């Protein structure tokens, strides 16, 4: 797909010096209920197209919706976890518009009577002055149904225009969604991109903690639309916003917000006006391109859904659900941080990488906290970023990471070999022990072959050998390196060094 564009951008420092950004984040969460929002069809991801459908979710004439009680319960729990008020009485509404992947040509959603409203979520962001908590206001959380999925076949772009034909899979149609909408997020200044990312990361953590969704961004079970606008100063009225869609990872949220800020700033700087529109984020090129223009006049002709009766959650039920909420992630994180004994900065790194759960699980599987953080925030985060994936979506489990670390601690692997093991696990070659066996990656622990390799290396570099004998212990690195190379990294570098110095009769005083 071509994403060429001539959009000018202003350098970020200049943007934040001259403009005040305001964010609005809309997050759609697919609930992990066993059945759909309004019918009994299963919700399992990845089934063959149009196999999880019935007259209701296909919108066949005569069919009627019936509300999934578990979805309502999940919506209330989400609302409570986001410090929202829960409506005593609310209704569904029809949002009318024609689109082929929407079976009824209206979406059953909620309009002016959301089930949860007026809450907040605190998110931590590392700033120049240290960790700072930003409070993101929650406007509302409401229930709705997902649409089907259209794929456009043929044509150059994969988009609807120019396609030869389109296929629609209705398996997703009717899967329960919760849409969580923030109030305008103001006062973030230059930290707007980080706040956006931290908000989604925290939200995801809460949702996972509630067990209401698998919140996988790349599978679309958590989708974020980022509204961004700029104004000359915090006192000025809100500027024209754009809504960026297709933001499918935490990293993309930060990048997309940042890009939109620089793009809009260039327009405003040139005396132009920002067009209110939907924009598409392109992960590969790191830019947004124009989608359809969206005006406030877009008329969905909302009206109360006459096929469903109002929902009136009893106060007793709501209080029962409140009492059974899991620990707030903010509190949970504070407890973890204290337990691990790490700094605010280090903890923020874990949180911002979306690594809290995987690190916690790796420690639970036996690794020490430093090692667990090292692997997830180092090698694995690098790979995840390369792949544009989330840490938890990498095909390696915390238990496997803990096993790799155990092998390192035992001396069976060194760091370099450990990275190869991880690479093998990610490539689907099996668990760490299987990869070690299959690739023959054990550290060479028998001194015989090592001594032979040392002798070879010393023979090849007599000048270096001389230097070491002369007391320049630092020069030993060259020989150790040569030995490691000769053993294809399977030696324990520390042991090689030990043997080398012994061989040369030099004591290690360096």
């Amino acid at each position, binding site marked *: 797909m071509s994403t060429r564009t001539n959009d000018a951008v202003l350098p970020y420092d200049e943007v934040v010096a001259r403009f005040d950004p305001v964010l609005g984040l809309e997050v759609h969460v697919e609930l992990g209920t066993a059945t759909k929002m309004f019918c009994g069809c299963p919700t399992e991801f990845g089934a063959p197209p149009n196999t999880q459908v019935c007259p209701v979710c296909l919108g*066949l004439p005569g069919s009627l919706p019936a509300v999934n009680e578990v979805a309502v319960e999940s919506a209330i729990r989400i609302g409570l976890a986001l410090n929202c008020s829960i409506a005593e009485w609310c209704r569904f509404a029809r949002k*009318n518009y024609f689109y082929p992947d929407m079976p009824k040509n209206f979406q059953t959603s909620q309009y002016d009577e959301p089930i949860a409203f007026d809450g907040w979520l605190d998110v931590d962001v590392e700033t120049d002055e240290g960790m700072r908590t930003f409070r993101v206001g929650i406007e509302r959380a409401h229930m709705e149904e997902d649409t089907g999925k259209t794929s456009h076949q043929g044509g150059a772009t994969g988009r609807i225009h120019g396609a030869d034909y389109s296929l629609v899979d209705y398996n997703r149609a009717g899967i329960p969604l919760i849409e969580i909408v923030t109030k305008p997020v103001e006062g973030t200044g230059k930290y707007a991109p980080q706040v956006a990312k931290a908000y989604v990361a925290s939200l995801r953590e809460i949702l996972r903690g509630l067990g209401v969704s698998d919140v996988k961004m790349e599978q679309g079970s958590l989708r974020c639309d980022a509204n961004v606008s700029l104004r000359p100063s915090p006192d000025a009225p809100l500027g024209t916003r754009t809504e960026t869609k297709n933001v499918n990872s935490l990293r993309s949220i930060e990048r997309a917000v940042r890009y939109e800020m620089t793009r809009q700033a260039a327009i405003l700087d040139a005396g132009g006006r920002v067009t209110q529109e939907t924009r598409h984020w392109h992960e590969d090129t790191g830019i947004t391109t124009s989608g359809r223009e969206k005006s406030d006049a877009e*008329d969905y*002709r909302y009206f109360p859904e*006459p096929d469903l009766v109002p929902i009136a959650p009893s106060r007793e039920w709501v209080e029962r659900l409140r009492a059974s909420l899991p620990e707030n992630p903010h509190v949970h994180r504070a407890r973890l941080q204290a337990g691990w004994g790490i700094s605010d900065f280090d903890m923020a790194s874990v949180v911002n990488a979306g690594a809290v759960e995987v690190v916690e699980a790796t420690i639970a599987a036996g690794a020490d906290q430093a090692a667990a953080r090292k692997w997830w925030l180092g090698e694995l985060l690098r790979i995840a970023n390369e792949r544009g994936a989330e840490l938890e979506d990498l095909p390696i489990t915390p238990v496997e990471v803990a096993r790799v670390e155990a092998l390192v601690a035992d001396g069976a692997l060194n760091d370099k070999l450990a990275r190869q093991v991880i690479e093998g696990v990610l490539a689907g070659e099996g668990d760490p022990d299987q990869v070690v066996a299959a690739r023959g990656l054990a550290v060479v622990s028998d001194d015989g072959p090592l001594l032979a390799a040392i002798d070879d290396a010393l023979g090849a570099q007599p000048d270096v050998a001389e230097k070491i004998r002369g007391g320049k212990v630092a020069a030993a690195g060259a020989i150790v390196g040569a030995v490691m190379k000769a053993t294809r990294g399977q030696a324990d570098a520390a042991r090689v060094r030990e043997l080398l110095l012994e061989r040369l009769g030099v004591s290690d005083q360096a």
Partner: protein
Amino acid sequence: MGDLTRLTAAETAAAVASGETSAVEVARAHLDRIAAVDDRVHAFLHVDADGALAAAAAVDDARAAGRALSPLAGVPLALKDVLTQTGVPTTCGSRILEGWRPPYDATVTARLKAAGVVILGKTNMDEFAMGSSTEHSAYGPTHNPWDLDRIPGGSGGGSAAAVAAFEAPLAIGTDTGGSIRQPAAVTGTVGVKPTYGGVSRYGLVALASSLDQAGPCSRTVLDAALLHAVIGGHDPMDSTSLDVPVPDVVAAARRADVRGLRIGVVRELGGEGYQAGVRQRFDEAVELLTGLGAEVVEVSAPHFPYALAAYYLILPSECSSNLAKFDGVRFGLRVGEDVGDPSIEQVMGRTRAAGFGAEATRRIMLGTYALSAGYYDAYYGQAQKVRTLIQRDFAAAFEQADVLISPTAPTTAFRLGEKLDDPLAMYLNDVATIPANLAGTPGMSLPVGLAPEDGLPVGMQIMAPAMADDRLYNVGAALEAALLDTWGRPILEGAPAL
């Protein structure tokens, strides 16, 4: 036995149960009758002879095996073409659903099948139940068996005509603003709109979700009650279905005793605009009720005159959304996909332009407008307030009376084509029936005689509070018995031979 098509449903069921006749013989007699008269009446859009005979044979087998039969086992029935039946064409009287065979049974259909009712076929109707004459069917009008040049009412003209023409002793209709009751009135049959939520709407192709209700059509009050008992009751597939026991309508129809009951004549539903013969027969029936020991009082429902206007905002609004799914993408008609290189929007547009008739198009446009931003409060919002006022009118009136009565329709059957070009005149046919739909309360129409000036049937409407459907049957059956005494024979025996 004599002519099996002349039996009531109760008599038919008894004859099948006793072995006096078989369900297959009964089905054959009705299929023969349909073959003989329906080219002139055109009550049916689709006759499912094979399905009917198979269902009848199953009843006979069950009886032969000694299994208990349900009270309507083996009784033929005509199903309005707005309810789904697995594998049987369901068009709603529209081109846009031509050829669609639903993959599922409506709850009503499923309950009929489970009760051993023999479904003969699908009956004609105004397109998507929009109309009062059946002339808005895409498949041509149904003719009134009393006078083939006249309308059978609508939208359920096919169901009422099938019953009036002895093509079936029972039919299912649906009533959004009078589509069961007004056809019953103009064909000399009985029709009941149950309490909203009393009969599942699952599988009833929606016109206006908050108003639609399926109900029985028959030639006697008892038959309607028997059918009501089969199709009524809670259904988890319909969220608006009431989770309460169905009132014992059959017992009420058998009780037929109005002594001490307070019967309220609604002042606003009568007088000016009502045909003289309609008023005369209605007044006579009121006297008859008084003679039976009822206390007749006049009640006022001051907001009823606004019902029609509110109805024609609420109905089009809901219908504009309900009919959006007919777009040629997943089922039914698809038009113009090979002309030029059309976009999906163009194919949807062409399909809907070709598939919907004038009345459907008119109401979709009205509703789309009424729901538009900036107009919603003035139209839909205001209409909902009127709806609340009408509900309060009913509540106040039921303080003074146990049931309310009025003429069902202002006139007897008019001529085909007479009002086709005047939608407002057509809409006025439902002026007396619409309030009950807006309030969700039940109503029955039953024949109270022939208008002296044209010799055509006149219907009286009985209305009761929500979930007091049994009162309709009690009062209706009492009046029916008294009228039968007066006439000496059922009203339909006086209809001209077809």
